[in-house]
């Protein structure tokens, strides 16, 4: 005879529909776990827990005690009291109070986000990262509220293989373009170098030619400047 594994029935309590939706998504991904009820305040959560008798209850610590009126601000301090009440009434249930739930949902989670629940319990010396479905096999004391934080890990969306191949091809093509441009630049510089060398040779020839001509001219006629100076000195003495 096979042992039949009973499903994990989960009750969710949070004022925020987004938070309940995220938690429902976490539960759905757990094999054998499903949501039996959702509550937006503490009074409803306790009433649902009494009637549905869930295996796991997840409570947002920022939970209003009762339904409020639009014109009156609600006090959102009922999470711990709700969790404690349910834990006392249903000692066999795992009651999880999520401290940073709203913050985690609004800051980190997205449509593709996966989530795990990290449990802290000072009295039971627990610090575990577990999935909701594993809670039934946990080592915690029955009737105790588990103080937990939600850790949201980003999960990359599934990608088609063709997209990956195309991205790699684009990367290699980009490298080829960069290499080609480098070679072209080298060739342009090489051409400029040849022109520069030719210009240098031309300049050298011209300068040699000018020097030779100048030397020939200086031999043919003595320097006029020297002569003129002497003449000036003479004229001074004569004065």
């Amino acid at each position, binding site marked *: 005879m096979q042992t039949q594994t009973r499903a994990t029935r989960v009750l969710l309590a949070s004022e925020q529909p987004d938070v309940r939706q995220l938690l429902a998504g976490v539960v759905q991904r757990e094999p054998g776990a499903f949501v039996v009820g959702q509550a937006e305040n503490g009074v409803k959560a306790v009433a649902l827990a009494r009637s549905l008798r869930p295996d796991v209850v997840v409570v947002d610590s920022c939970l209003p005690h009762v339904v409020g009126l639009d014109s*009156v601000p609600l006090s959102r301090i009922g999470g711990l009291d709700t969790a404690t009440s349910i834990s006392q009434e249903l000692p066999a249930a795992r009651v999880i109070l999520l*401290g940073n739930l709203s913050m985690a949902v609004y800051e980190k989670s997205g449509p593709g986000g996966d989530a795990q629940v990290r449990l802290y319990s000072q009295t039971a010396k627990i610090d575990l990262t577990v999935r909701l479905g594993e809670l039934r096999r946990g080592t915690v004391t029955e009737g105790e509220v588990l103080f937990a934080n939600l850790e949201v890990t980003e999960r990359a969306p599934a990608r088609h293989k063709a997209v990956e191949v195309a991205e790699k091809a684009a990367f290699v093509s980009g490298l080829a373009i960069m290499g080609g441009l480098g070679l072209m630049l080298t060739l342009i510089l090489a051409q400029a170098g040849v022109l520069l060398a030719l210009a240098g040779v031309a300049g050298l020839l011209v300068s040699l030619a000018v020097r030779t001509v100048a030397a020939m001219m200086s031999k043919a006629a003595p320097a006029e400047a020297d002569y003129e100076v002497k003449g000036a000195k003479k004229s001074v003495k004569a004065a």
Partner: protein
Amino acid sequence: MASKQILKECHLFDGLNGAALDRIADLAQTKEYDAGATIFSEGSPADDLFIVASGRVALQMQLRTALPQSSKRVTVDVVGPHDVFGWSAAIEHREHSLAAVCLEPVGALAIGGPKLRSLLKADQQIGYEVLSGLIKVVASRLDETRHVLISERMVSV
């Protein structure tokens, strides 16, 4: 976070200058608590005044009924970063009227009540500023409590 910085961000010490904050920081020590930990119980000696640096703390009161088995603790307030709790330690030596339970891992600054009271008496300028800040904190708590009372009474009528 350094003690002085935590004090600086708390409204209770808004009126104090850097030197005065240093004198109070000398009386303080930083503490860390796990989620679910009880920082102090109802009826325990009010030795320290606490300032929350990180995390949230539920302040709970024991609701006593005729049947002892049906009595339970009720959360009357939740305090977060920069908030003060256990403030009766600044005024006189008495017992805590509430219990403080951490909803998350909490970092807090604990200021010794007797030494703080001695400082407030010895330096009247610091004493005036801190007690003025304390009155604002208490008035704000009273205001919030009124809101809770109105909120829950409005839906029950």
